[in-house]
């Protein structure tokens, strides 16, 4: 369903989701088309765009967001600049962290993402910290920590959630279940993952994470309640693993997403056809927008605009300089005399 918001804001959500999809397609192309450009491994957020974008649509710049090894999407969703994200992914001096962080740890303090951990569950307790700071300062800022199903296997999840509940911290535990762990054999003994927060008296909500309307509506209520002091709350948004994410390194198994597949699913390559038809939050949303009166032509025009913008961002990243080697020793300490 469509979120109950004005038309331009509805279209704005599609724009953000497309920005993420197009940026991450470039990220994979960096790897596939340029030998040695991305030397380590990396992960993408493709297929989960509806949750990050819909949640962040309700957040202010001074609200805190914590993310994971799949951070590119969240950074852009929170208002981050795709140029600086793509430049950071390939270690450029113009990236968000001057090339120190790379794909795994993109931090963008200017939009409320102060630190990013690539350790599964690494940010759960840190998020409790920014929430606690807001509580102490009497600020209305809230914290949203995005994490995957795998993070619930980590002990820190339990400790952070327990303290968050005891201290009534203004934060949202937003779990994006992409079933990547389930696909590799059971990683958790709980029948339902929400049973774990329930045992600590944390209220939980389970939603379809690819339906923009559902996610947006849920996020509106949850954000409002946490801002009013009803935190912490827990949401499980269920998504479907994009076929290109089934490998150690993501692959564009069906090439880049063609918006036209929204209306002509059989045109998609076989390996990705079913996923795009049934589980792609972007194509699903395109169809809904069209049935609500946004013409296919408008949607295709928007996609062309976003694609060209992100193509330019990718060129910016590729043309940006690498950091000066001697900069390796910068920033070990903030203090003087260290």
């Amino acid at each position, binding site marked *: 369903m469509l979120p109950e918001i004005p038309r331009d804001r509805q279209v704005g959500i599609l724009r953000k989701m497309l920005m993420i999809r197009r940026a991450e397609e470039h990220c994979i192309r960096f790897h596939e088309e340029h030998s040695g450009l991305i030397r380590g491994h990396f992960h993408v957020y493709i297929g989960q765009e509806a949750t990050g974008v819909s949640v962040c649509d309700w957040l202010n710049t001074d609200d805190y967001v914590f993310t994971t090894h799949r951070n590119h999407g969240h950074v852009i969703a929170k208002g981050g600049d795709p140029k600086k994200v793509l430049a950071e992914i390939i270690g450029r001096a113009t990236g968000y962290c001057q090339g120190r962080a790379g794909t795994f740890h993109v931090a963008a303090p200017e939009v409320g993402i102060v630190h990013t951990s690539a350790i599964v569950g690494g940010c759960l*307790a*840190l998020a409790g*910290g920014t929430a606690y700071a807001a509580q102490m300062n009497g600020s209305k800022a809230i914290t949203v920590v995005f994490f995957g199903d795998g993070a619930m296997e980590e002990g*820190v999840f339990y400790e952070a959630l327990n303290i968050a509940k005891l201290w009534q911290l203004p934060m949202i535990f937003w779990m994006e279940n992409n079933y990547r762990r389930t696909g590799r054999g059971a990683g958790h003994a709980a029948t339902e993952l929400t049973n774990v927060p329930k045992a600590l008296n944390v209220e939980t909500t389970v939603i379809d994470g690819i339906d923009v309307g559902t996610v947006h509506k849920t996020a509106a209520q949850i954000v409002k309640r946490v801002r009013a002091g009803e935190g912490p709350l827990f949401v499980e948004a269920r998504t479907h693993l994009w076929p290109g994410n089934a490998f150690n390194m993501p692959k564009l198994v069906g090439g880049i997403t063609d918006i036209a597949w929204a209306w002509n699913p059989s045109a998609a390559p076989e390996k990705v056809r079913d996923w795009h038809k049934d589980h792609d939050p972007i194509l699903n949303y395109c169809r809904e927008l069209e049935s609500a009166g946004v013409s296919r032509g408008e949607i295709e025009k928007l996609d062309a605009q976003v694609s060209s913008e992100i193509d330019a961002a990718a060129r910016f990243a590729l043309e940006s300089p690498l950091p000066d080697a001697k900069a390796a020793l910068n920033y070990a*300490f903030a203090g003087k005399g260290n």
Partner: protein
Amino acid sequence: MPQEMTFGEALLAAIDEVAEQDKRIVLFNPSFAGEAGHEKLAAFRKKYAARIKFPPIAEIGFCGIATGAAMAGLRPVVDISTATFSYEAIPQIVNEAAIAYSNSGGQTNVPVVFYLKFGIRGGGGVQHSGSPQSWYWNTPGLQIVMPSTPADAKGLMRGVLLRSEDPTIFFGHDRLLDDRGNVPDGAYEIPLGKADVKREGKDLTIIATSIQVPRALAAAEMLSKDRISAEVIDPRTLQPLDKPALLASVKKTGRVLITDESHDNCGVAAGLAAIIADEGFTSLRAPIKRVSIPPVPVPYAVPLEDYVTPMADRIVEVARTLVK
């Protein structure tokens, strides 16, 4: 007029003075004061009740929360209590707090203080006698503070709370907590990275940290009876490290013994020895010697525990081999 107080009371006084002015300072589990400072601690806890949390027994959870709070502008002081409990929080201290400033390209400061009561306390057994200073010193991004006297404890704690923008591991040896000493009045602070010569001497330099400073001073006294003049220098902080002061002392005496209550292997003494070998080799007239804990988990029974504790007599014994 300098005031006499214990090491623990000095820490508490430092935090009290700074926290009174700086509302960003919040405290988790403040228990610094030692046995002697019990009443002062109770008053402190009452005064700062609104800024104090006593978290559940969940070190990875509350150390992470303190780290995140520091990223958001607070200045948390976390009393981890026994140093070995910090091992439960290594992922947050080493893999998040220590890296955030560098990883973000200088955008995110983490001014959190983790206070660790460390060392062989007497009957602590293997899991309550830990000395992880070399682990943390081996972690870039952490400041390592190891005071040996009440005056240094207060001055360094004030220095950290007033000036630091980096995560700090502040080590207080369990056996120092109730030691008394004169502490200067009022607003004084000791900057990090400034060593202090605790006793002047000319035949031999003893570099000593924390509890090893009083032990080294006792050893120097014993050595003086053999007409061996030992200089005792206390780096006070390992990160930042006052290399010039240490090297100057070694240059003066030509002989160096390094003593720290952590294990030999890749320990603090080993790290300092490497620096002196690299940068002070031509000053040396004898091999560099270390007096620390032999590579065995600290055992419980009195004779066993005493055997591995680097006491003054061991320092004397090794010093004598250097000055013949």
